[in-house]
């Protein structure tokens, strides 16, 4: 673990107050994001801890009054890509594995989903089934769905967090949802949901 002392130049008490006031309230959201990315509780905890230490180390580059949560999520995402992505665990349930296998190609292409899926079917599904379908998505798609649907970041904020153009945010999100619907429709059919 690297030391976090080099880059903090603001007074100690200010840095601590800023950290506790602006960053700590987002710990639940950060942990949840890390857990969705890594698929492993221990890795998620390490990822959040590393992210917090990095955030503290570079606290001088944070502008108070700007959106701390987006800043933290960007650090967490970079941390995940650099250090954790290779060892992240696969989906827990085999039923959705075909999603990974069947996905390939340009994300800017129009999504091909014409899934026969209805709101009632989604409402009937168990929580674990929804979670498994999300976890089976390729990580870039899983990431954008969590950022948008769970954390409610705007397209502009997601573009900054993910370092991609806003047009790519739109197309990736659209495609992620299409794959998720296809996956849920196939699963619902196999399990005899209406």
């Amino acid at each position, binding site marked *: 673990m690297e*030391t*976090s*002392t080099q880059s*903090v130049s603001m007074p*100690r008490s200010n*840095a*601590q107050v800023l*950290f506790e006031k602006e960053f*700590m309230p987002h*710990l*639940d959201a*950060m*942990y*949840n994001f890390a*857990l*969705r990315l890594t698929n492993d*509780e221990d890795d998620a*905890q390490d990822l*959040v*801890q590393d992210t*917090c*230490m990095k955030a*503290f180390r570079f606290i001088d580059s944070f502008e108070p009054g700007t959106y701390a949560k987006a800043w933290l999520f960007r650090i967490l995402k970079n941390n995940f890509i650099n250090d954790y992505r290779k060892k992240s665990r696969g989906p827990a349930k085999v039923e959705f594995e075909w999603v990974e296998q069947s996905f390939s190609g340009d994300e800017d292409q*129009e999504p091909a989903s014409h899934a026969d*899926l*209805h*709101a009632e079917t*989604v*409402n009937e*599904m168990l*929580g*674990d089934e*929804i*979670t498994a379908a*999300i976890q089976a998505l390729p990580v870039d798609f899983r990431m954008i*769905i*969590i950022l*948008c*649907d*769970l954390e*409610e970041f*705007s*397209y502009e904020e997601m573009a900054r967090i993910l370092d991609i153009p806003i047009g790519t945010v*739109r197309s990736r*999100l*659209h495609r992620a*949802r299409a794959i*998720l*619907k296809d996956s849920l429709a196939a699963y619902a059919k196999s399990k005899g949901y209406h």
Partner: protein
Amino acid sequence: MKKTCTHQPDCLKLIQRIIDREATPEEEAAFLANKEQCLPCQEGYELEQSLRKAIKSNCSSKCPETLFARIKAKLFVVLILISILIPLFC
């Protein structure tokens, strides 16, 4: 009530932008007025809302208390280190 929608791909994109709060008020008003006359748009809107709701209620986890305590303890150590090291170099 229309049983088919000739603009379904565009309508689906608009539905998602509305649910994501990225559509303009004019776009949203126009869609909501049209939705009452178009079954696929109505069903598409309900499906997207259900998906959003299902994700929100099933994909949340709370940070373990032990992690919270570990981060605070680590931060405390870092701050102590800073308070010891900085005077040595100033």
